[in-house]
């Protein structure tokens, strides 16, 4: 049998239900120990993988994850320009009421902790380090699990997606008329 290598770069990460549950448990434990406002695990393109947010708090996690991942990527470039061999270990934003601590988990994921200014940063760093070690043992590798979704984007999916896109992305009736004119 001939051995062939095949590279698939369309799908960066696939997260299974079991992995999601393990990750959620790690974040819950950390939230409980620190009593923090919110904890998010985000991937390098800014998508929220898992989160624990205090129930009394309203948070747009989509935008927060996007902004954090981008600012972390910018910090990585800063580190490179300064001749650092790897990214800064953490990024900290200090606010009047809340601080935001961001730390790299590995090249694909970052941990964001939002905590009130009364919580000691040292304690946050200590427990974050332990959580990151736990997360590293449960996070998926690139390409892991992709063999389970070989038919995810089959012709039927593509056709249904086309119909949904047509339904969602519709010009106004006036616009249609202008195009026809």
């Amino acid at each position: 049998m001939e051995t062939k290598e095949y590279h698939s770069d369309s799908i960066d990460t696939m997260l299974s239900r079991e992995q999601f549950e393990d990750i959620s448990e790690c974040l819950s434990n950390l939230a409980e120990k620190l009593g923090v406002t919110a904890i998010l695990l985000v991937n390098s393109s800014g998508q929220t993988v898992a989160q624990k947010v205090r129930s009394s708090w309203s948070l747009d996690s989509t935008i927060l994850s996007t902004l954090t991942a981008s600012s972390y990527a910018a910090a990585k470039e800063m580190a490179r320009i300064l001749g650092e061999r790897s990214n800064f270990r953490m990024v900290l934003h200090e606010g009047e009421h809340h601080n935001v601590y961001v730390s790299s988990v590995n090249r694909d994921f970052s941990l964001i902790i939002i905590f009130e200014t009364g919580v000691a940063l040292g304690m946050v760093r200590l427990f974050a380090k332990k959580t990151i070690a736990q997360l590293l043992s449960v996070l998926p590798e690139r390409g892991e699990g992709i063999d389970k979704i070989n038919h995810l984007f089959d012709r039927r999916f593509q056709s249904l997606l086309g119909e949904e896109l047509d339904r969602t992305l519709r010009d106004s009736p006036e616009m249609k008329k202008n195009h026809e004119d």
Partner: protein
Amino acid sequence: MFIHWALREIHLKIVYYGPGLSGKTANLQYIYSRIDPTLKGDLVTLKTREDRTIFFDFLQLEVGNIDGKKPKFNLYTVPGQVHYDLTRRIVLNSVDGIVFVADSQREMMDANLDTLLDLEKHLIISGKTLENFPWVLQYNKRDLPSAEPVEEMEKKLNFFGVPSFEAVAPQGQGVFATLKEVIKQVVARAHAQLENRQRVSVQ
């Protein structure tokens, strides 16, 4: 692409790329203005005091469930000005598909080509190339009197024969057609790669 199987979510990242003031932000603004509020998030814009994009614009939109899966499209723009080269590279991280927004004005043809070559340079750094990556061309500002004929723009920019669209982004002309096509390209490529992967694994 990120697949969150537990939540049945499929996340795609689409980046609008092009020279400064070609209309990348205008595309997102039109999309934002026309989409059902339940299917979109806020439009985030990171601008300079002069109203130019300094980092990126961002908009997440969804469509309905497809066989129990929820596709989510994360749309970004890059800053077009030449000196934001590094910022563009950051925004391109983990990109799944690109809309290249070209400015149709005759005097912008060199800037269009330079920016397309700049895009290729960034893609190559991350192991991709325009030759085999999902992307589409949008010829924007077709309403301006100095607009170059489309045939000329095709010759100058579309050397890989990708789908191209004429547009007047602030009025919405061509905006949705462009977005639909790039999404279809991304999904079709993912499907082809998964099929090839399966074929190789059974050999």
